[in-house]
């Protein structure tokens, strides 16, 4: 019998010595320590594809941002554009746009970059040839009527109508980046796994659900990136990702959980940077049916919700209180807008005036998961609203569905109100106001079916005017009417957060939430 105990002891000793063996080594030590400088950026899920024409999600765009160049690009800390593959451009009327292209640029596969390559990229997404999966083509490039090659380094776009945000669209990470025509022809449907651009980093390898490895492009026209290799690592759990950062296994991460903010800030080896995000978190009313077809009822509900307290408690300082549909980091934001203030007594009076002295019962569509604009998830926000509205006699039934099903429900006509939000695509107010609140968008993302002819008129005019000051005035006027009409309860704008090791330098949070890493060093 004694020998059995001996065996057990030996086994235990073996396990312990193995552990001790590990203890002498550093955790992230590579099998062969490479001499290169590797920057590891961890995020919560993998990319879907690296073909910019085929993608709709941020995780794919994040990687594409560092492989591809566009004709123009956003400045490092604003949504203004600056030259990229196009060195200069002109448009006398906002309809015809001529771009003069950068010379001596080559794609990573050696294909020369020229006007033909640009035309190829636009043409493959033209309405008559594009495949259904090119879901952003219509939004980003749909206003283009024709593309002409003037010479090798000059290209001319003719638009169907004047469209002010056109330049910003060309800077977007979805649909607009320029890919190597040779590679697209070579790989066909598999191009998304073999991306070839002209950008700062060259695609090296993609281990699905693990990592995407890029290497620096020494010949990039913008200068060689600061690190030799860039790794986009997938770590699904927010808390686990934070642990990796604290343990020094990764250099940077996004998707910081509000629950981890404190321990990240407490560690002297890491830093957390925050910036207002280009998003809006809101509750929309179904304005096409009772009771919310009555402006007084919408106003009353807006007044019954204590937005300030709600935002403070729910988001703990990681979101800003909204005063209208646009976030403060976007031009066109009007700081002096005054949405209806918290006033439960006034709300009750208004309800009585509208014929609901005893309140009513309403269905509120919501979703369980966190979103970029609502880090605590829709159900918790819904419960907070439910509690406030109960105080003025309105009974709220929460109808929660998984995210994709929730989107489908919002696009339908169920319920009396819905929780949702929006994260901007291109840094233009049109990308919030027109697509979410223009009467023509009721089949699209104007789930409220809000349609005020005066607002529609202002928004259409602003879309087709190229003078920035004029546009600003039009958007201001439109927002004042929208806030008075109250088709939504404007709740909050979530802050973007990126955490990194102390030695990481040169990173700025971009308002579009794009991740640009060529200037980042460690």
């Amino acid at each position, binding site marked *: 019998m004694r020998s*059995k105990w001996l065996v057990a002891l030996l086994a235990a000793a073996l396990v312990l010595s193995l552990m001790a063996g590990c*203890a002498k080594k550093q955790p992230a*030590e590579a099998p*062969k320590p490479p001499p290169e400088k590797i920057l590891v950026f961890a995020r919560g899920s993998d990319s879907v594809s690296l073909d910019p024409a085929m993608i*709709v999600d941020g995780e794919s765009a994040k990687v594409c941002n560092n492989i591809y160049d566009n004709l123009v690009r956003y400045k490092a800390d604003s949504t203004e554009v600056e030259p990229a593959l196009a060195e200069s451009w002109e448009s006398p009327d906002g309809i015809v746009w001529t771009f003069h292209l950068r010379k001596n640029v080559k794609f990573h596969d050696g294909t020369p970059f020229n006007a033909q390559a640009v035309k190829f990229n636009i043409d493959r997404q033209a309405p008559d040839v594009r495949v259904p999966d090119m879901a952003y083509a219509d939004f980003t490039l749909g206003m283009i009527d024709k593309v002409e090659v003037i010479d090798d380094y000059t290209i001319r776009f003719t638009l169907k109508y004047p469209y002010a945000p056109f330049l910003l669209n060309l800077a977007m990470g979805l649909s607009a980046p320029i890919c190597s025509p040779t590679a697209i022809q070579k790989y066909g449907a598999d191009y998304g796994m073999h991306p070839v651009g002209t950008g700062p980093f060259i695609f090296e390898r993609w281990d*699905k*659900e693990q990592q995407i490895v890029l290497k620096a492009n020494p010949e990039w026209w913008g200068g060689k990136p600061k690190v030799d290799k860039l790794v986009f690592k997938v770590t699904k759990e927010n808390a*686990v990702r934070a*642990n990796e950062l604290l*343990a020094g296994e990764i250099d940077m991460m996004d998707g910081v959980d509000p629950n981890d903010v404190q321990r990240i800030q407490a560690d002297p080896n890491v830093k957390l940077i925050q910036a207002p995000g280009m998003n809006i978190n809101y509750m929309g009313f179904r304005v096409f049916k009772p009771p919310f077809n009555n402006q007084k009822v919408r106003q009353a509900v807006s007044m019954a919700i204590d937005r300030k307290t709600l935002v403070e408690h729910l988001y703990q300082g990681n979101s800003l209180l909204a005063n209208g549909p646009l976030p403060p980091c976007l031009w066109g934001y009007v700081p002096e807008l005054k949405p209806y203030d918290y006033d439960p007594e006034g709300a009750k009076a208004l309800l009585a005036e509208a014929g609901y002295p005893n309140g009513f019962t309403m269905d509120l569509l919501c979703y369980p998961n966190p979103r970029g604009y609502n880090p605590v998830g829709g159900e918790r926000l819904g419960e907070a609203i439910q509690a406030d509205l109960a105080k003025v006699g309105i009974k709220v039934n929460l109808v929660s569905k998984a995210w994709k099903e929730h989107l489908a429900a919002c696009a339908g006509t169920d319920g009396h109100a819905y929780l949702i939000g929006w994260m901007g695509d291109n840094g233009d107010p049109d990308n919030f106001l027109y697509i979410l609140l223009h009467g023509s968008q009721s089949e699209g993302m104007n789930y409220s079916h809000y349609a005020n002819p005066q607002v529609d008129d202002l928004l259409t005019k602003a879309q087709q005017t190229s003078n920035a000051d004029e546009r600003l005035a039009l958007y201001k006027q439109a927002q004042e009417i929208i806030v008075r009409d109250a088709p939504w309860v404007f709740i909050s704008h979530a802050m973007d957060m990126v955490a990194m090791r102390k030695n990481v330098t040169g990173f700025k949070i971009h308002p579009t939430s794009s991740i640009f890493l060529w200037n980042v060093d460690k």
Partner: protein
Amino acid sequence: MLNYTIRRVLMLVPVLLGVSLGVFLVGALQADPTRIMLGQHATAEAVAALREELGLNDPILVQYGRYVLRLAQGDLGRSWLTHSPVSVEIKARFPHTVELTLAAMALAVVVGIVAGIISAVRQYSVADYTTMVGALLGVSMPIFWLGLMLISVFAVELRVLPVSGRLAAGVETGLRSEFYILEALFTGKWAVLWDLIKHLIMPAVALAAYSTALIARMTRSSMLEVVRQDYVRTARAKGLSERVVIYKHALKNALIPVVTVIGLQTGYLLGGAVLTETVFSWPGVGSLAVAAIQNSDYPLVQGCVLLVAAVFVFINLAVDLVYAWIDPRIHYA
């Protein structure tokens, strides 16, 4: 025996057919997949074109018939999200799950059986109580919590093991297959192998905890039953040493229920250890299934469910065959 095996393999067909009907209906009754595939900016024409392309306008029976026909040809369809064939996605992920499962089961079987035997042979001793309290903890601790605790102790505080993933990020390994550990072992890439093992330890321990506890408890109760039987007394009476009595005579018979548990547990884990794979960002079938569900990517969900069903049928078959080997009284005609 051969006849029996063939018969059992043929039974796979109706089982998978039944499962396929179930998973097909779950997919078919869902909200419009075209919206899921095309995103919020999609135009009405694009949605209509895609519906036509996917055959969603046909009657549901026609759709199912087409689905089964494709299935029979080994075509599991294409993922709605990535557009690559489901079989390719699963093939790329299954080896990761297999390696993790084998490691966890090896740990669970060795530790579980040894602990169970010690506990049974020394019933009511300190060792017995310790083992059984440990086993109770093992079955009651949520894997998710255990995983996070392991990470904070061994990876963040002590820094002896890496937090998550299969390999250190960005390192050129030269591995060509998805069976990383096996390949590194057979091609002699020792540095890579060492890195792989360090990444394997915590997920394997977390995953093994529940199975180890279950096997230990099952071994103990089964052993206690067997050692009281007449033939064991006879063996002792004829003067065999305690070691031979326990290991040669008692253990083999006591193992029959344990083998069932091991088989079932292996089946569960091969279907994708959902929580463990999520906590440790292990790129296996479990995390694939979770992502597929979150994205409402039904072809992929269907593929994962079919895989789990097939694995279970094969494991059950293997368990039945092992019975015959352990216990000569059992035999199949």
